[in-house]
């Protein structure tokens, strides 16, 4: 009797395990379809991108063809552009001589009778002048002028006048004049006195530039 009961029990187990295969089948089918859908999807997407790429490549080829037909325009414009570049450089490097001449007048507040002005595009100036009285240097003009180095050649009557001029220039140190050096001095041949060359530097006095007047 017990055996029969056991046999009944086995039959029930078998039925249960056959029923459990259904979700596994379902899972397998779902996995299959997922893989198939993803594969189809990605293939379609890839194909669409390929088509898009082809269209863009064709457009680019069309534009490049058009550019090739406009090669002369391209070359002409390239030359114009390069030339304008060079012209802009030339224009930007130009020194404003008119302003420089005007600056020299204003720099000495019209206290010098200027005979000759030599200007170079490196913004240096050589001025030959006669003193008409005490030299006055305009601080505001010294700070705004483009001239950074100025050689001032003065004819002076005596050594005391030279000392007086040096003292005169010293008084403007730090007030637009950063340096005033006596570059050269020589005795005049045809008349009494000296020709003295002062090297004047204008701008703001900074720690690197020691202001001073030397002989």
């Amino acid at each position, binding site marked *: 009797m017990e055996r029969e009961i056991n046999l009944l029990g086995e039959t029930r187990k078998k039925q249960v395990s056959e029923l459990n295969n259904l979700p596994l089948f379902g899972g397998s089918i779902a996995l299959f379809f997922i893989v198939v859908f993803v594969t189809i999807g990605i293939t379609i997407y890839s194909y669409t991108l390929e088509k898009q790429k082809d269209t863009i490549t064709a457009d680019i080829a069309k534009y490049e063809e058009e550019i090739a037909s406009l090669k002369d325009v391209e070359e002409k414009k390239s030359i*114009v*552009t390069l*030339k304008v570049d*060079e012209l802009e450089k030339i224009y930007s490097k130009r020194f404003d*001589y008119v302003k420089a001449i005007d600056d020299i007048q204003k720099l000495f507040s019209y206290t010098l009778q*200027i005979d000759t002005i030599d200007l170079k*595009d490196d913004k240096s100036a050589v001025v030959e002048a006669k003193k008409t009285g005490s030299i006055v240097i305009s601080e505001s003009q010294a700070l705004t002028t483009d001239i950074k180095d100025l050689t001032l050649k003065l004819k002076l009557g005596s050594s005391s006048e030279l000392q007086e001029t040096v003292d005169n220039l010293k008084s403007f140190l730090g007030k637009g004049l950063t340096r005033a050096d006596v570059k050269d001095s020589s005795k005049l041949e045809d008349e009494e006195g000296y020709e003295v060359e002062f090297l004047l530097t204008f701008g703001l006095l900074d720690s690197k530039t020691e202001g001073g007047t030397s002989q």
Partner: protein
Amino acid sequence: MKSSKVLITYISRYIGVVILVVTSIAAVGIVWKYIVPKVQEVQTMREEIETLKKKRTDLATYVQYLNQLASSTLEIEQALVNYALPSENDVISLIVTYEGLSKTEGVDVSPFSFTPGLIRKAKTETDTTNQMGENGAGESTSPEIKPLDFTMEVSTEKSETALDFIQKIHNTRRVFSIKSLTWKNPLVTSSSQGTDNEITISMNISTFYYPKAPQVLGSADLVNKGKTQTAFIDKLNQTMIFDSLVLDSVQVGKQDFFTLDDTVIVPTKTIKKDTEATLSATPSAFPGDF
């Protein structure tokens, strides 16, 4: 019979697991062998497409710009810029500009002197400009630019006229750049300005030409620079040329050869001082908007 029955029982018990395992292995295989490379391919392709799209946009802008140039301002721009900076040693425009300047009222300008090598062309140009470079001319400009140096002596009675003249030199279409200037006697105190004393100005001037072989710039450079340079080109258009002042055409002889009338036209060359600025490129002929 019994063993086959057991086998069937086992198979029927584990068939679901077997199919799931096989499907999973197949799925992994497909993912590994097909989907992953395809995804990578798609990513690469998308990046490529983005790059190509940008390139297409740039090219479209470039084509549009070139077409616009071809149909509008390029010829005028080219003429303007070539006059200012010729591709070869254009001595004619140099002389015309010099002569035009010398016709300024109230100033006496020394005749234009040909320095040796100034009008030399083609093969010998390089040698000439190298010599000039050694002499210090054109050191501040780029190596492609070739300078032509000459001197100009000017005398005038009024300092205002002299200053205006110096300003004028820097406002000619053929680019003149003053390298150095000597102003002699008498730039004196304001009280004595405008006296009869003669002012003499000696100048070392450079003009330039650009013999570089044609080269095509990149499209972005061309469009960007082309757009930013319009203001400068406009400014260049305002500069002075003297062609009609110096090279004014003169009508001589009969106009109609088939008439019996013996009247001939007498040369009537007139110099129009007031039209020397912007003679050939009037604002109407040269639109400011490029």
